[in-house]
């Protein structure tokens, strides 16, 4: 057998026909109650194209006309510099703030094409209880437990984020951040909020919170299409590169034909607590 395996060899797959790739518009946008809309526009690149800083600069779409409408009022978003993160520019609203119960239409006009997507801001959900659990009194790491009561009248979809003061630069989605009420409709449901990694492709190796830290928890409700996007994206991100997974996980986008990404509304409730 080793004789056989020794005979195996690697080559450049020069004769592999790589399908031509047509870059698509990538929409990464959100709107939350009480906040302005934020939309980042980029272009996807061929899997085989090299990534360097020039390629990333090129990926940014900064000449689009981006507007939102709540059915009555509308506004054109302005290109805004964002120095902390990449891409360094995004489109931001200045007039319309998100309101619970409204549906927002996003319109992107770029290079003669018009793309539209829709999302809603649903009633923000509430926890019944949030508490830390330590294995033993001398332990410094705690698991965050949560409990909430689902609304029996409707299908509900949730997403949870956490933020550690002075440690995180943004709200980080918990490990497997999406929840649907398919199996707990109308019931009081308890779960553990496992702290996620900064990047989805990093392994979530530390799911605990440290004693003494100040933690904020963001509990959101989402509509079905918005939920499906994050659910399938996380599924792909966690399994990518693993040779034992079924490959080609589809990500269900809600931004329409010819685009990738998401336009998502959040109805969010924030909690702050100290780990003790």
């Amino acid at each position, binding site marked *: 057998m080793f004789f*056989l395996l020794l005979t195996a060899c*690697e*080559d450049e*797959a020069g004769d592999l026909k790589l399908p031509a790739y047509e870059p698509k518009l990538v929409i990464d946008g959100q709107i939350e109650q009480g906040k302005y809309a934020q939309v980042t526009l980029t272009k996807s690149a061929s899997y085989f194209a090299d990534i360097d800083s020039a390629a990333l600069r090129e990926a940014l779409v900064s000449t689009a006309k981006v507007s939102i409408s709540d059915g009555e009022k509308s506004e054109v978003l302005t290109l805004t510099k964002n120095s902390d993160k990449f891409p360094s520019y995004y489109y931001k609203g200045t007039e319309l703030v998100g309101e619970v119960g409204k549906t927002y239409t996003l319109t992107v006009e770029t290079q003669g094409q018009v793309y539209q997507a829709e999302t809603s801001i649903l009633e923000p959900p509430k926890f019944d209880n949030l508490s830390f659990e330590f294995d033993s009194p001398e332990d410094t790491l705690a698991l965050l437990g949560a409990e909430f009561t689902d609304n029996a009248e409707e299908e509900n979809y949730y997403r949870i984020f956490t933020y550690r003061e002075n440690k995180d630069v943004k709200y980080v989605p918990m490990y497997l951040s*999406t929840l649907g009420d398919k199996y707990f409709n109308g019931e009081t449901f308890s779960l553990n909020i496992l702290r996620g990694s900064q990047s989805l492709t990093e392994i979530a190796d530390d799911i605990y919170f440290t004693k003494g830290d100040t933690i904020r928890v963001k509990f959101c409700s989402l509509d079905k299409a918005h939920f499906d996007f994050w659910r399938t994206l996380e599924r792909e991100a966690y399994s990518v590169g693993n040779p034992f997974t079924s490959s080609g996980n*589809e990500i269900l986008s809600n931004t329409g034909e010819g685009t990738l990404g998401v336009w998502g509304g959040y109805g969010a409730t924030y909690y702050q607590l100290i780990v003790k």
Partner: protein
Amino acid sequence: MGFSQQNDLPNTSECKFVVTDSESGEPLFKAHILIKDKDNNLLTDFSGIASIKLSKGVYEILVSYVGYEKYSATIDTHLQSEFALALKPSVFTTDEVTILAEAENAHIQGIEAGSKQLSIKDIQDLPFLLGEVDPLKSIQYLPGVQSSGEGNSGIYVRGGTLDQNLILMDDVPVYNPSHLFGFFSIFNGNTVEKFNILKGGIPAQFGGRLSSILEVNSKNADKNQTHLKGNFGVLSAAATLEVPVINKKSSLLVSARRTYVDLILKGLSNSIEELKKQPNYYFYDLNVNYDHLITKKDRLTFNLYKGTDDFLYQGVNDFENSIRWQNQLGSVKWQHVFNPDLISDFTVYATDYQLNLGAVITNYELKLSSGIRDYGAKFTLSSTNIKKHNITIGADYVWHRFTPNNIVLGTKDDAIDLGQPEKLYALEAATFVNDEFEWNEKILVNVGLRLSGFMHRGPFTRYLANETGQTLDTLFYKSGANIQTYSGLEPRASFRYKLNDASSIKGSFDRTFQYIHLAPVSSVSLPTDIWVPSSEKIQPQIGTQYSIGYFKSFEQNAWEASAVLYYKFMQNQVEYRNGVLFGYSSGNNFDDNFTFGKGKSIGLEMYVEKKTGRFTGWLSYTLSKTTRKFSELNQGKIFPAKYDRLHDLSFVGNYKLNERWKFSSVFVYATGNRLTLPTGRYLIDGNVINDYGSKNNFLMPAYHRLDFSATLKGKSSNVYQSFWVFSVYNVYNRRNPYYIYFDVDGDVNEYNLTISAKKVSLFPVLPSVAYRFEF
């Protein structure tokens, strides 16, 4: 009334034919005897006897049996009524290349458009990987049958998946017929006598799989003489002993094969310290067949098989990895001849496949085991020659026990209790009736009906969970509880229309049900693939197939040619859901990870064979298209199957130079497999995400390979024969891609990333030599 009793007329007589092997004297069971002019086709019983009432006269008869030379003779029933017909095995050892005046024309006469029978003698001189004679690989050279990958013994038949082939070793199902991660099959060239594939027009006595039935029959030992056969190759050595136990009444065959790479390494490792760290691997096969003629009318056959693959790697720092899988089969078959026209077969069997994976890292231990066990029984009653009807009726019953992935975690000192290992139970039963009859001289018809049923039984626990796998509710079923029942009505029909003596048209319709499933994550068959039963969530697979073909022979049947068109539609096909991790269940139930859809395959199979002369061989070509449609995959759009193969061509040629030398060659060409690879990348919330485009969007480069072998007959006498087989696999060193992966260089966070596609090829040009002898 008396008029109809022809047999009372003085000018008829009961004629008896006894067909035997000319060398061993062993009677040949189910040999065909064709009485020309009368167009009567007889089959011998296991005493080699067939009889018929013939009016006095002179007849030409033609006797044929797979693996033997055809025998034609002229008989005169005025002179005698009993005829001894001794057939010569058609081996390379025959002194002359026999060119028959007229070869058998079953190709034209027979009804089977979708079947092909081969004898081990047809293939034992072909070139094989490392010289291991492998019947499953030679099946891949037939039209409509595709190999599942480089060196792999898995087959795809007419667009069907790997699990849609019922592989029977002496009527007992084999669930994983592979050794060495699929590179060799468990069928040892030394014990196999003949094998037969049915891919369309499947008689009703066969069922349980959608796409094909592959019957592999072991040799029954000679009841008159002791024989010893053996062979040594680069990879393994094998020996087969045939012993008569009670002369002319019973015989025993014992055959064993074992690889010896590990033994050589062990011998070396005493002197070379480094080799101790080498992984240790071997496989073996053991076949024991006992055949006993109790009375002239009763025959008992016992078959046992055991084969194991054992891999152990002991690395540094107490790292240990082991993989072990094994098949165990046992059966008892009782055949009873009421009269030569009425024969019953009763078989009881057990078959078991087990896989154990283990890993130890310092103090931690992981064990994973899976498997399937069946206890089954099958009864058939076949009656021939009732007004030209050949009727078979019978029933099948199987009890299944499945052990899907069971994982045990622990330290060396104490195991973590993960509860009882999950076992799943199911029953499968069927009853069938099949009738083959001659409508008129031109039309032969086969109609059959199979009624099959399935039951998933307790004990079973079903967990209801949410999308992220949190359990919300649990349902318990107690032992023997009926959880889910399915049944299916499977009509089968085929016909042959004879245009003239040298050409015919054949057609068939098959409806097949399959109640147990395998959904391999990767495109090659691996020992880790797991069988699962139908359940509340997994419905039985249903296949519907139509085929029509034109068959022709040339130059007194020296050449055969055919073109067959098929269309197959498959329902309730099983695939893994997106994002399922192999070996880890993302849900709590065994059936949580599957998604279901439809499959379709259409193809044209062309075949030309030269049967006689110095040069023999065949060329087969299949043009096909296989697609699938799953609502949860590829946005519900149609996508090509992984093994959608537009072109699939095989050439097998044998040339006999002289008494001592024979040359063989195999050439295969096939469109590459398909796979899903990312085509693009994009950024969402600071994460780099892959864009896959459509499912199975990549076409691997075509697979082609030329093999060559030369067989030299060594010193031989009447009692001893020996052969050297020199072979070269992949003569022109084609780098066929085994898999494709992406080499990622750099770091996205440093804005520097380069990706290139790489392919891994397995076998370069590989010469080998094998030595074979027979006493």
